[in-house]
């Protein structure tokens, strides 16, 4: 019912995404047919050439789709964002079933019939077009059907690189932990797969005339199960055993480092066993895990908690935000400990060379050149009250193209590679220096403060006052430069987050002993 309400209130957007989805699958399948059938014909005719071709297509098929998107993104010509890369990836996935069934279809033609064709005086080309292809056609259509149904499923992942389609709802729903939004993407995608499957099954049966088999539901049902199961598997989290402090984190580098910092500090200062439940997911997943008792503590950002969790209107005074958040958490039996010291605000970033060339220092400075720019934002930023809509209102942005929605992990690279021209990243990202990006100052104070604070279950702190002391020992000790350095060490220096956290704690320790 809520799904119905969501779809009817978003019907224009829904139809747009559905159309995008259909276009992605349609064009990629069409191109795969144009390439795959001739390749299949050659492979069927020349087994020595065919074996490596089928092997290669097999290998391509085994690459996880998200990894494939990642591989292709930085490539010239086919790289870049959105539909182009998505279509290339979808073509690569569609090729295998089409090539394979073309080979199987042609090789499966009764040798008596090819001999009859030859004996009647057909040239090899006539044999192909008049005997082999017509007889292989139902098999080839079966392959196209498999390719298209797989394509409908894989295309949902294309939303991760900003290609749009129904996957946008799935990703948006995942980062909001809103099953309704996930289902708004997953259910229509599954229905689309069923529809495509049914349509092509009809074509196949029509071609076979009499010899129709009843494998109709198999591929579509598999996709339905995979899409929905994957969506829900990502949301659900298993329950750990008792009597250990469970430290959680969200799913990005800084959070994992901070999780390690908390864990190592607790281990060192209290000797209590710490169970690390890092890399949980987005804000909402971490929050739910904390409230459900699946974790005891994690690092949240005050502005994020205020707007995204407690749904308050954005507020820019750090002290007031901290008070509001503290009160909100207290009502749920959660305790906010003193801030760590740095503010991980949203950073509006442009390329360093653009900033120097145009003399950009503040976000306001970027408004005139942005008329020629395409921005790129993460899913959460596009949705959040303190995200994209308010940014546009506050500064009066007018972009050349609507924002490209993509995964946060890809966004810095996209900016550096000139796929987009302005992004919202994290002020503490190690990639800012690595890619020579420039952070524009929020001169109108649009973004709320995002002071990093440990949020813990009050019951745990009561049971273990030593844990509270350990966590409070970190108060004010981590500056924004410290955080950037640590992020850089992991993201660019490829160091282990736990090692980076250990080094940092060792340095803090030296500072503490030498200072007083």
């Amino acid at each position: 019912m809520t799904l119905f309400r969501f779809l009817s209130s978003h019907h224009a957007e829904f139809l747009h995404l559905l159309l995008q989805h259909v276009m992605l699958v349609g064009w990629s399948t069409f191109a795969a047919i144009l390439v795959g059938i001739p390749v299949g014909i050659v492979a069927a005719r020349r087994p020595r050439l065919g074996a490596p071709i089928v092997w290669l297509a097999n290998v391509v098929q085994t690459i996880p789709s998200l990894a494939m998107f990642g591989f292709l993104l930085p490539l010239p010509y086919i790289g870049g964002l959105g539909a182009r890369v998505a279509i290339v990836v979808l073509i690569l996935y569609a090729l295998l079933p089409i090539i394979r069934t073309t080979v199987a279809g042609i090789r499966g033609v009764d040798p008596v019939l090819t001999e009859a064709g030859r004996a009647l005086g057909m040239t090899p080309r006539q044999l192909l077009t008049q005997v082999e292809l017509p007889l292989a056609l139902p098999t080839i259509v079966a392959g196209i059907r498999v390719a298209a149904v797989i394509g409908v499923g894989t295309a949902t992942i294309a939303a991760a690189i900003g290609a749009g389609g129904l996957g946008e709802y799935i990703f948006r729903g995942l980062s909001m932990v809103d099953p309704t939004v996930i289902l708004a993407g997953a259910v229509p995608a599954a229905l689309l797969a069923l529809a495509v499957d049914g349509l092509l099954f009809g074509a196949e049966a029509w071609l076979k005339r009499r010899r129709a088999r009843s494998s109709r539901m198999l591929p579509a049902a598999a996709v339905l199960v995979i899409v929905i199961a994957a969506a829900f598997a990502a949301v659900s989290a298993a329950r750990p055993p008792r009597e250990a402090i469970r430290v959680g984190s969200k799913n990005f580098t800084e959070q994992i480092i901070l999780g390690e910092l908390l864990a190592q500090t607790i281990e060192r200062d209290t000797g209590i066993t710490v169970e690390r439940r890092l890399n949980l997911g987005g804000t909402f997943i971490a929050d739910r895990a904390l409230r459900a008792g699946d974790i005891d503590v994690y690092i949240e950002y005050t502005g994020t908690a205020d707007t995204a969790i407690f749904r308050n209107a954005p507020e820019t005074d750090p002290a007031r935000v901290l008070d509001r958040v503290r009160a909100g958490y207290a009502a749920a039996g959660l305790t906010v400990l003193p801030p760590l010291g740095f503010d991980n605000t949203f950073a509006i970033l442009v390329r360093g060379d653009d900033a120097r060339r145009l003399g950009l220092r503040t976000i306001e400075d970027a408004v005139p050149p942005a008329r020629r720019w395409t921005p790129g934002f993460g899913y959460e930023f596009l949705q959040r009250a303190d995200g994209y809509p308010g940014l546009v209102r506050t500064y009066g942005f007018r972009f050349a193209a609507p924002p490209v929605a993509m995964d946060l992990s890809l966004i810095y690279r996209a900016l550096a590679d000139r796929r987009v021209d302005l992004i919202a990243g994290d002020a503490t990202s190690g990639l800012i220096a690595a890619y020579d990006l420039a952070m524009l100052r929020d001169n109108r104070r649009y973004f709320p403060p995002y002071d990093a604070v440990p949020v813990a279950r009050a019951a745990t702190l009561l049971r273990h006052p030593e844990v509270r002391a350990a966590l409070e020992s970190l108060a004010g000790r981590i500056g924004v430069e410290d955080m950037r350095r640590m992020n850089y060490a992991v993201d660019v220096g490829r160091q282990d987050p736990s090692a980076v956290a250990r080094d940092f704690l060792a340095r803090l320790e030296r500072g503490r002993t030498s200072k007083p």
Partner: protein
Amino acid sequence: MSESAREVIALRDVHVARGGLPVLRGVTLDVAAAETVALVGRSGSGKTTTLKLINGLLMPARGSVLVEGRDTREWPPYALRRRIGYVLQEIGLFPHLPVAGNIAVVPRLLGWPEPRIAARVEALLELVGLPASIATRWPGELSGGQRQRVGVARALAADPPILLMDEPFGALDPMTRAELHREFRRIQANVRCTVILVTHDMAEAFALATRIGVIADGTLAAIDAPRALASSTDPRVRPLLEPLFEAGALIGDRGR
């Protein structure tokens, strides 16, 4: 009239090897126009190979094969095959074409205009004794005997001067077989083309052929008119004749 002009098909000391093993070892055979020659032999004796030599699906390793006085190596291969009707043992009707489409394959390859093809299909169905209504049926819907008749019609479609038949009646029940033998003699009297028929059944050879060739161990052991062949004492020929004596088919010839 010179000897060579009468010979529609001539094999001259033909040798063929497959995978290093000899299949035919020096076969010489002349077939005159409107003759029906049956090639009889055990499985694997080289009968089908002989047919494939004639329509150019195989080339001899040594010796030569002449069709209408011209070496098969010099014939344009597709033109040669379109001039030679071929009935396969398994018939090999195309399942994706209706009966009319199957019969029309060679005329279409030759680029006949459609009205001529339609008229030809109709005439051929009548010739092979099938109702005109069968033209729109699919091969999968036909009985074995009907399929065999369609196969013959397809082979005869472009009015070829030569017809090759590879065990054409092998898979049929005896009744249908006897009926098709009668039909074959009627058709042959009608179209008067040169026929080479491959069979392992001497009775069939006796029923249909004007001359019978016995192929054994890759050579042509004997070739003669049926009655003359029946009195052969050749040890390679006698075993093939035995079943006929047992069935009493050649009782009148026994004492000769």
